[in-house]
């Protein structure tokens, strides 16, 4: 870590000596260094994804000897513990103390929304991982680009695949009872029903649910399949209990972009085999960049990179491309931000571009869980090229509707 000398002296006076004891040694920051802030989660229940975010970004920077566009870069990491108020505090630290030029992160929607107005006030270029829809839709943040996806960007594609390729007509949906789950299911429902399908059951389970038995007992078995919109360990537990109830032989399962992430598959068994999910990434992607990345990541950490690792690796590539196009002059924020949004890069996820709202337009993959060399992987079955957050709808029309939520679009085909 490094702090300018003047700032250090001022700070020392401030803390009256108490804080001083905890100060690490000072190194003088070089004026030519680009300072990147990573806002992630390293403690608490969300830590698994957050640690992968840091590992992959460090890997990206190491591979380039901490040089991007001819300038030395330095990485500062903030741990929000997944608590939005802490994320705001940590971002203030990154901005005010570490003087970062650009932020990558945060991981969760709550944290991203908590720092939204601070990002605007500070004019801080941000490469987000969090999926909150409206940050690139009805309330777009001009300092924001998102190289991952919105909550519904991949579930639109999954719904299309279910109706057109699998020819499914009746489905049930379940997700965590949080905005991410609401948005993902809403997008799925809209496309599925507009393609002629019917959503006959829709469940939202509270975050801290130890037992899904009560939801499994309600699940209809006269449906074509169920879509899982979970994140983190909840999808893992749901699926294991689903199997426990003998439902796997009766109801087919498909999932959203985090439900069967590589990080979940690490500890999964055969019950996951054959499940289809839609995501903008798979460790199995065959492009040369990803082949190298996945192999390196696996050899260093002994497991496949998943959603969160790929997220920061992609954002790293977007950042580098934009920096190159402005010859590394990140200090000119307006020009740099313009360059970020104009970025067209080939990354581990494939080609990446951005729409007018700063959200990525990129490929979405339908993946199938298979066993390969003894471990479970997400094999790519089908590719939806250049998917926008607006799916196939004209953006202006899409934005006239309310944001996706628990109640929008209304579920008209639910059966008692």
């Amino acid at each position: 870590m490094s702090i300018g000398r003047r700032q250090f002296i001022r700070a020392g006076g401030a803390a009256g000596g108490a804080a001083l004891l905890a100060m690490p040694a000072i190194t003088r920051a070089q004026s030519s260094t680009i300072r990147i802030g990573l806002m992630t989660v390293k403690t608490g229940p969300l830590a698994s994804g957050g640690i992968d975010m840091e590992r992959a970004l460090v890997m990206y920077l190491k591979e380039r000897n901490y040089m991007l566009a001819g300038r030395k870069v330095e990485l500062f990491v903030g741990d929000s513990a997944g608590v939005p108020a802490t994320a705001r505090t940590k971002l203030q630290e990154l901005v005010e103390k570490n003087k970062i030029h650009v932020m990558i992160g945060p991981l969760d929607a709550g944290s991203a929304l908590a720092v939204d107005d601070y990002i605007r006030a500070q004019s801080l270029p941000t490469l987000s991982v969090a999926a909150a829809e409206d940050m690139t839709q009805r309330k777009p943040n001009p300092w924001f680009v998102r190289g991952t996806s919105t909550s519904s960007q991949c579930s639109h594609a999954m719904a299309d695949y279910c109706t057109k390729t699998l020819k499914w007509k009746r489905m049930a949906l379940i997700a965590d009872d949080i905005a991410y789950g609401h948005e993902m299911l809403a997008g799925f429902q809209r496309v599925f029903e507009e393609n002629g399908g019917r959503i006959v059951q829709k469940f939202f389970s509270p975050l801290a649910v130890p037992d899904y038995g009560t939801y499994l007992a309600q699940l209809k078995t006269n449906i074509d399949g169920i879509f899982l919109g979970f994140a983190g360990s909840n999808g893992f537990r749901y699926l294991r209990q689903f199997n426990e109830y003998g439902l796997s032989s009766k109801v087919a399962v498909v999932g959203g972009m985090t439900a069967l992430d590589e990080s979940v598959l690490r500890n999964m068994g055969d019950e996951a085999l054959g499940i289809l999910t839609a995501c903008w990434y798979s460790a199995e992607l065959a492009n040369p960049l990803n082949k190298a990345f996945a192999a390196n990541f696996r050899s260093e950490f002994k497991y496949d990179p998943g959603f969160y690792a790929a997220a920061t690796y992609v954002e790293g590539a977007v950042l580098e491309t934009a920096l190159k196009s402005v010859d590394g002059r990140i200090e000119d924020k307006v020009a740099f931000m313009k360059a970020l949004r104009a970025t067209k890069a080939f990354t581990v996820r494939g080609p990446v571009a951005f729409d007018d709202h700063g959200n990525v337009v990129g490929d979405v993959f339908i993946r199938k869980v298979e066993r390969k060399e003894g471990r479970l992987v997400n094999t790519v079955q089908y590719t939806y090229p250049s998917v926008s957050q607006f799916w196939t709808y004209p953006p202006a029309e899409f934005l006239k509707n309310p944001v996706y939520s628990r109640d929008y679009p209304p579920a008209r085909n639910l059966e008692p």
Partner: protein
Amino acid sequence: MTSARRSIAIGVLLLVAALVPLVAGDYYVNLLSQMMIAALLAASLNLLVGYAGLTSLGHASFLGVAAYSSAWLNLHSGLGPLASAPLALLGTLLVAAVFGWIALRASGLGFLMLTLALSQVLWGLAYRWVGVTEGDNGLRGLTRPQPLGLDLDSAAAFYWMALLVVTIALGLIALLVRSPFGAALRGTRDQPRRMSALGYDVWLIRWLTFVMAGFWAGVAGVLYIWYHQYIHPSSLSLQASAEVLLAVIAGGAGTLAGPVVGAVVVVFLKNFVSSYVERWNMLLGIVFLLIVLFLPEGLVPGVKRLLTRLRSGALRP
């Protein structure tokens, strides 16, 4: 310490505190602002935990109610952040009155559980009543007030405002504790039966204390929402309530300075040390463990005891 010396010490401390933004960077000023908000919240809980002997595990609720209602009014009623504040505090008072009425049906672990349960119900509401709270997206797009045309957007201006408000609030809490009411309150903690026999309405004293504790937590909540300009259900979670309770106990419940010191230590560990120590959660736990092992009455009374022993030891070698 004599009261004159104490007043001088407090005066010097305040003067030093007021000068901090002239020398410190924004980050440190903001850190101190957060410490003050946490200190006020802890001091308000201390009324219950320390002086009434009622351990509440749901105190973040009141911070949350004030912050949410202030934010909602700010966004939907056309009232500015300043005009929203009294209404938000009134709402907090009402919630505290009802919660106190329910929770005080029990004491001990039952009281702790009722406060926990009530706060969990509020937390559930914050998550699920999306029409009002926006669920886990939280309420944002808020502004800081501009009292008398002063712009509180800068770190220093906000800090001075918070210093003023928190100093007044802590002063009033100190007055309350030293008043006859405060003496009666301590009586209900130590000798509830005797107080009853003496004609005191123990229930009423506890209830009034509960409501006042809620009110001051509400003031902390208004400062909180002005500071963060954002509110999320996690701010009134069980973890948030546990954190403020731990700050009170670690610092020394039932002393005026204890909760302030405890809150400062917790915020310092959580927001500052966490940038250097990856396992800061473990460190926080170890700090609590060490406090319990070596200063079981809390930091402030414990250190005082050690100092006294040191002094008397020096007198009699």
